[in-house]
């Protein structure tokens, strides 16, 4: 058990031992319910065939919710990004999880990502805009460029998140690159 826990992100061998000990001490309150929920997750959680997110249902709750806007697709790298956007509660359209970003150095190639499925979804009638919500890293931005090239033939509007001044941030403390990005993506008020 310690060995397995130690393989979890953020846990080393020492914290894995502490977690294991804690679980064994709280057998009824923690260990057994956790074991049950792990088994449930293993049995029922699957990848949504539509958006690539994780849920017990396929299509997932986000894809089947009738209250969401079919005309907007927000493209993210990982399932965690969907959760982050949902936590913010600002987006009411559909999601598309690529399953990573392109990286020649890490061996992640276009065929490893769910790009073909995205193109298929974007072709559907009624889709107005695809929003690329990818990280502002070299790999994230190269992926955004790649995806937008593939969508450009379809005639759908492609947008990406703006980069610049963080909420609550002071201009004086920003580096030149961020300031330039903020200036480049300014908008009328």
């Amino acid at each position: 058990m310690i060995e397995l826990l130690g393989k979890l992100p953020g846990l080393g061998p020492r914290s894995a031992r502490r977690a294991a000990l804690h679980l064994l001490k709280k057998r009824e309150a923690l260990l057994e319910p956790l074991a049950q929920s792990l088994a449930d997750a293993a049995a029922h959680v699957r990848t949504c065939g539509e958006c690539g997110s994780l849920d017990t249902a396929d299509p997932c709750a986000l894809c089947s919710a009738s209250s969401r806007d079919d005309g907007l697709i927000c493209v993210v790298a990982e399932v965690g990004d969907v959760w982050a956007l949902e936590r913010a509660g600002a987006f009411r359209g559909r999601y598309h999880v690529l399953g990573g970003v392109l990286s020649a150095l890490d061996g992640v190639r276009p065929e490893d990502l769910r790009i073909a499925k995205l193109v298929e979804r974007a072709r559907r009638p009624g889709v107005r805009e695809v929003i690329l919500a990818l990280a502002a890293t070299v790999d994230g931005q190269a992926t955004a460029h790649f995806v937008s090239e593939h969508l450009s033939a379809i005639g759908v509007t492609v947008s990406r998140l703006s980069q610049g001044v963080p909420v609550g941030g002071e201009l004086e403390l920003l580096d030149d690159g961020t300031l330039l990005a903020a200036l480049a993506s300014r908008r009328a008020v």
Partner: protein
Amino acid sequence: MSARLWLADLRLTDFRSHAEFRLALDDRPVCLIGPNGAGKTNVLEAVSALGPGRGLRGAGLADMARAAGAETRPRGWVVFAEAVLDGDRHTLGVAAERTPDGGYKRTARLDGRTAPAAEAASLMRLSWVTPAMDRLFAGPPGDRRRFFDRLAFAFAPEHGAAAAAYERALRERQRLLDEGGASGAWLDGLEQEMSVHGAAVAQVRARTLKALAAEIAARPEGAFPKAVLGLTGPLESAFAAGAASADIEDDFAARLRAGRARDAAAGRALEGPHRTDLEVRHAAKDMPAAACSTGEQKALLLGIVLAHVRALAADPGAGPAILLLDEAAAHLDSARRAALFDELVDGPGQAWLTGTDAVLFEAFGLRAQKFELRDGAADAI
């Protein structure tokens, strides 16, 4: 004028040859005197470890740990300093701690709390000259580029992030070109990234070059020969000529795209800021620095570094820097040494010098604090 940035206290624990080492200081320049192997350079390296990056030897965290003999593996190390910046005292601690997987993790604390690297960088600006740089002008271009990037980094700490992003995109693009058959859209995306970050790198370099040239020009010809500096990169030249960033980016992206077949055949990208060289000429002699005598090269290098710390101190976005001069006095004749010391005494940041003999530092008189290093301890002399 007293220094605007100086260390009032320096403590080393398990750093290189020093198990426990301490210096209590005032704001005058610091001279460390002792025979070879006394650990003088290790003290300078410890000061450089307080800033961002890999320090003046370019060493890894593990290399800086004291070898604890055969009985145990090396432990972590700690460098603690009390730094005074414009009259305000700050405590600054940098530690390399052992991690469970056997590596080292760097942690920095500023004024009693964990500090991001950028914050420590804004307090502890550093510049240095080491014996390893004696061949800088005659050596490979990569050494000069790294030297200049270090000067640029002190002006703009974000230079490091832009350079790393550029390097990443460059390597990714080359991997795709080497493998062949990659999608054009993917290459487009990476070249876009290379052009954005490459232009950012070139822009900071061009700005740094301008500031250095202005600082050098502002001084009369003195003991340190004036250098004429130039950067060979087309992006840097375009910025110097006042071109707009967006145009420079577009132009570079277009050239990368046109150069794909060439770069694939060469196995490396043949143009870009990663190929930029720093050209240095002896102004009065109108001669390349590499053709000057060893002593003149050292004097040119010191002249550039002195101009760098003056330019930093004058830049509203930067500030004073600590100057580390390892064995720098040895190559200079006595007149230049005296001129160097005069300049260091009036410098914006505290200077740290090493030498094997106290005679080298006589011209300082009482204007510097001198310590003899022996058996891991420092005695004031």
